[in-house]
Every structure is written in structure tokens, then in C-alpha cells.
């Protein structure tokens, strides 16, 4: 274990998130069991008051996950100097088998929380709170997910050995590596670009279509997820190359560094926001036939889809600007 402030901070944040949800779990169970919106009994009034606490907690956990995602990447990047062969975050995450899973788990929790908040939002717009039981059952699912993040982080940090020789973005994302990430990097720029723009265009079109016509809500979520993966692939396969102006530097994290003027944030902020909104728009779809939500859901999901469309558009535009502005020539 490496004793470092940022590591302690990350573990603290995860532990507090888990503890909060854990303490809240019994109350969520009470809501599932005793909820009766028609009743004016004091127990019902108490339960209703508790719902405010839970949505505040969920927002808090989600914000924490997002911030600690950033801190996690920052920290991995800084730790890289302690490992032989590691030159950036990728190397540090590769020191043991838990680095990347921890990162992915954290992103997953973030998107799950985004979906939950979308459902919560529409539910509180209907006077009979029709989704209360579903919502709190889902909150109970969030608990193991957050706990998994904590566990993966613990395993990752406890198993850090400074003398391990690790591979860095040079080898992980270089063309001759036989791995998924290697394959992502090995994509030659033209198919990667085509995939990138097609997926983003599709996600944008679906979201914009849904915002206009309010149809195809599930498709918004599906294309958002696909676009998210395609966008990350595109960043690894070619966008990062243009930013670094180096034909073999495929790292998705180094673009967050000050050396590259923090250009990565211009990409990741709209991408994450758009994906979260797209997932949110999909998450509320199963309930669109619920009587009291007939009006609410199309409105809310249209708004979320509009944000998602704007986010994907900004992301694609920013990526295009980075590519065209670069001095690197990949495609003759």
C-alpha cells in the first residue's frame, strides 16, 4: 500500500458514500413496505419526509463519484512516476488487475446514479409518487455498486507495489498489443473516424429526434451508450494523437494534463453530461404509460434528450477542432 493523501481521500469518499447508503438502506426498505400515498397517517408523513433525505443523498453520492473519478485519474497520473515503465495514468492503473476495473466501476456508478436521479425527478413531478417503490428498490441496487467501487479501489491501492514493472500507454494503447485497448488503438484512423462520427451522429440524431417528436426514448439511451464507447475509442485511436501531435501516443488521460492545456476537459465534460442525460432519458421510458406520468415523462425526457444532443454535438465539434488544428498528419 502506498500511503498518499489522494489515496486516503479517495478511500474516504467511497467509504462515506457506502456508509451513507448503508445507513439509509433500512429506511428504504420501510418505504417499500409501508408506503401508502392515500393515507394521512403520521407514519406516511414521516416516510414522505424521508424521501427528501434520500434524493439529497443520491445527489451527494453522484457528485462524489464524479469528483472522485477525476481525482482517481489525477492520482493515477501522479503515481505513475513511482512505477518503473509507467509514464502516465495508464501505467499506474495497470500496476495490478484492479486499476481499470475500479475506474470503469466508478463510471458505471455515476451513470447509474444519473439514471436514478432522472427517475426520481419525474416521480416527484407526479402527485401520487407512482414510482416510489421501484425507486427505492433501485436505490438498494446502487448500494452494492458503490460498495463494489470501494472494494475495487481498496484492492487496487492495497496491491500497489512500487517495484512492479508496468506497461504504459505506449504499450497498452500501441498497435501491436493483443488486448481490447490495444485493438482500440490499432484501429487505423479512417475506420476509427468513421465509427466515431457515425456513432456520434446517430446519438445526436436520435436525441434530437426524440426532443422534437418525443418518440424513440430507449434508442436515445442505447445510442448514447454506443456513442460514449465510440467516443472513448475515437479519443484513443486518433483524437489524442492529434492533440499530442505524435503518431503513437494513444493515451486518453494525458490530454487532461496541464502540458496539453487541459484540452481533455473540453472533450470529457460534454461527453459525460450528454451520456448521463441520454441514459436518463432512457431510464424514464418504462414508466411513460403510468397514468400520472403521461404528461411529465415526454416533457422531461425531451429536455434530457435535447441536452444530450447538444452535448454530443459540442463534443464532436470540439474533437473536430482539435483534429483540424493539429500539425499532425495521419491521413494523406
Amino acid at each position, binding site marked *: 500500500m502506498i500511503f*498518499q493523501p489522494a489515496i486516503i481521500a479517495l478511500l*474516504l*469518499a467511497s467509504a462515506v458514500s457506502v456508509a451513507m447508503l448503508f445507513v439509509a438502506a433500512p429506511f428504504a426498505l420501510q418505504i417499500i413496505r409501508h408506503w401508502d400515498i392515500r393515507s394521512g397517517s403520521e407514519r406516511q408523513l414521516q416516510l414522505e419526509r424521508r424521501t427528501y*433525505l434520500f434524493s439529497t443523498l443520491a445527489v*451527494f453520492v453522484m457528485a462524489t463519484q464524479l*469528483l472522485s473519478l477525476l*481525482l482517481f485519474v*489525477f*492520482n493515477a497520473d501522479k503515481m505513475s*512516476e513511482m512505477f518503473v515503465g509507467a509514464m502516465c495514468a495508464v501505467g499506474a492503473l495497470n500496476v495490478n488487475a484492479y486499476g481499470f476495473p475500479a475506474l470503469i466501476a466508478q463510471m458505471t456508478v455515476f451513470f447509474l446514479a444519473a439514471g436514478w436521479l432522472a427517475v426520481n425527478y419525474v416521480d416527484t413531478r407526479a402527485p401520487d409518487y407512482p414510482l416510489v417503490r421501484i425507486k427505492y428498490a433501485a436505490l438498494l441496487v446502487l448500494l452494492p455498486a458503490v460498495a463494489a467501487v470501494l472494494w475495487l479501489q481498496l484492492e487496487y491501492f492495497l496491491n500497489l507495489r512500487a517495484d512492479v514493472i508496468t506497461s504504459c500507454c505506449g504499450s497498452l494503447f500501441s498497435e501491436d498489443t493483443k488486448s481490447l485497448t490495444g485493438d482500440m488503438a490499432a484501429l487505423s484512423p479512417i475506420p476509427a473516424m468513421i465509427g466515431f462520427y457515425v456513432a456520434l451522429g446517430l446519438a445526436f440524431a436520435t436525441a434530437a429526434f426524440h426532443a422534437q417528436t418525443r418518440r424513440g426514448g430507449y434508442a436515445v439511451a442505447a445510442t448514447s451508450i454506443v456513442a460514449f464507447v465510440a467516443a472513448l475509442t475515437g479519443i484513443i485511436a486518433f483524437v489524442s494523437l492529434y492533440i499530442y501531435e505524435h503518431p503513437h501516443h494513444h493515451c486518453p488521460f494525458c490530454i487532461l494534463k496541464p502540458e496539453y492545456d487541459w484540452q481533455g476537459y473540453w472533450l470529457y465534460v460534454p461527453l459525460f453530461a450528454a451520456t448521463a442525460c441520454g441514459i436518463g432519458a432512457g431510464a424514464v421510458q418504462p414508466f411513460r404509460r403510468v397514468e400520472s406520468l403521461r404528461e411529465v415523462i415526454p416533457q422531461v425526457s425531451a429536455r434530457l434528450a435535447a441536452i444530450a444532443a447538444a452535448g454530443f454535438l459540442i463534443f464532436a465539434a470540439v474533437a473536430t477542432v482539435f483534429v483540424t488544428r493539429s500539425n499532425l498528419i495521419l491521413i494523406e
Partner: protein
Amino acid sequence: MKSWIEKQRHLIDFTLSSLLRRRGRNLGLLVVYSLLVFVLASAMLYSHALRREAAVILEGAPEVVLQRLVAGRHDLIPPGYIDKIGQMRGVQDIRGRLWGYYYDSVVKANYTFMVPADGSVAKGALVVGPALARQRGLEANTGVSFRAYSGELRSFIIADVLPQASEIASADLILINEDDFRAFFNYPAGHYTDVALTVANAKEVRNVANKLSKLLPDSRPILREEMQRTYASLFDWREGIMLALLSAAILAFAILAWEKASGLSADEKREIGILKAIGWETGDVIRMKLWEGGLISLTAFLLGFVAAYVHVFKFGAPLFAPVLKGWAVLYPRFDLVPVIDGLQVATLFFFTVFPYMAAVLVPIWRAAVTDPDAVMRS
């Protein structure tokens, strides 16, 4: 959207005025909060600056340093040793170095005597580090004498004082001519302290080191990147220990925040009751209270951080230097290069704002769910 922004503005307005109305109560919390940020930020800024200082020094160091060991202890490099290494692929330059420590009983400190590679110091002259110059009141063209190992007193003329830029390593440094060095320390002719190897290609360093230890089994190659890593983890570790010690303070602070947030005064309770009765919703009250927490956090964070910045970079961290530095006998005076690092700010945020917000969440909710009809029942 516009009305949403307008609403948040109203909430912030109200929060600000309610904070100002209870100035005394909030000031206490703000002071404690800022103090916590100050202490943590000082520790972090200071160790980060030290870490960078060390990195800057190592930047100029040779890629590989070869030491000879006798029974596990550092010994002199005998004549002919360097020739044995001879030509090695990847090695640009091989050079024997001469340096050593000297205890000065006048100021009770250790100096490092070193012969510069370029032979730039003339016979009878010295170039001294800034801390040492300060301590002994030396400047260019003044004289100084030290008692040599032979017992006789030897005088030198100060040719120059080293620049201040990176003081931590050069503070106690004295550059001396090779002949003077050998005479002063009775250093056997042809011997060296260690061997520095310059390796151009970073990927070759490990190969060179492997070859060296095979060729000269009684030697120990020290790699620059290993040194860098050692220093980095040493400082991280110190910073970590410091934080672990301070975690008790963080916990105490979180408890204080919880107490403060849940121990609402009768006045505040009445106020929330009124707000609920006249048409504020539970969510509105929670939002208002979260703004309050956010504003307090932001103020404390800024105050504490700026104070820590001044403390570390303007005054040289007088409160923490002895704990965090502690690796040189002669303390350099600190004019650390100000560095702020995103990771550190984010970490600091997690250690201060995060516990605060987590601690006040439940009390805020509890205050906000006051019955709207409570004011009418009392």
C-alpha cells in the same frame, strides 16, 4: 430555466443575509474551518514544493552513479576501476567524481565539498552555497579558512556564491579545486568517491546497470529514476503521515459541523418554521441550507488556502518546516518556487469540504422537514 436561476438568486440572497444576521455564530465555525484548510493546505503545499525542489535537483544528476562497496559499505573507487568499465554501449560519458562531507565546528554544521566536473574553480578559490555564505557572512572575494584533515588551517578566497534558485541541495555546498580537495582531505591520488555515467537513451539505463553489476560485482549502480521515485515516495509518505495525524482534526471538525448544523438556535428553528408556513417547500429549505454550506465552505477554503500559500511561499512555512523537511543539518532558507497542483487542490477539497458537506446533510434535512403548521400550533 430563467426562473430557476432567479430562484437560486433569491435563495442565495436570503442565505447571505441570514449568515450575516448570525455573524457571531457562523464566525466561529468559519474560523475553525479556515484553520483546518490552512493546516492541511500548508502541509500539502510545502511537501509538494519540496518534492519539486528535489525533482529539479535530480534532473541535473547523472543517470547512473556507480559506488564501490567494501563489506557493504561505501568505499573509494581505486585507480584503474574506470578503465575497467571502458567502452560500454549506450554510455556517453564516464567520469570519476570527488566529493565529501566536512564538519565545521564553528557553526556546528556539515558541508558538502565537491569538485566540479568542468574544473572551473581555480586553485586556492572556493565557490560556496548561499545558506553557508549567509551563516558565515561570506561574499565574493572575502577569505575563509578551514582546518584541514592534516590539522593545519588552510585559507581560501571566495570566488563566488551559488545562486539561490534551488537551494535545498546547494545550500551547504562548497565547490573546490581538485588539487585542493585532495590536499585538504588527504585524499589518495588516483582514487575517486564514485563514478557518474551519462546514458542518453532512457530505455538503456537498466541494461547499463545490469552490465555494470556483472562487470564489477563489488559495485552498486544507483539509478536516477530510482532516486526520483524514492524521494517522491518519501515525501508522499511524510505528507500521508501528517494527514493521518491530522485526520483526528478532520474528524473533530466533522463532528463540530454536525453539532453546529443540528443544534439550531430557537431563532433559526422559528425562522425555518415561518418559511415553511408561508410557502417554502422542504426542497427549497434544503437547497437554501446547501447554499449556506457551500458558501461557508468556499469562503473557508479560499481563506485557508490563501493563508497557507502565504505561509509556505512567503514565510517558508515556519510551522511545519521542521517536521516535513528534516533531511539537512543546515536548513536552507526557503524561497520555494510557488507551485499549485490540481491533484492537491482536489485532494484538499476531499479532506475539508467533503467531510463538512457529508456531516451537515442529515441535520439540514432534519431542519427542513419541520411541519409547515408548526408555527400555528405553538
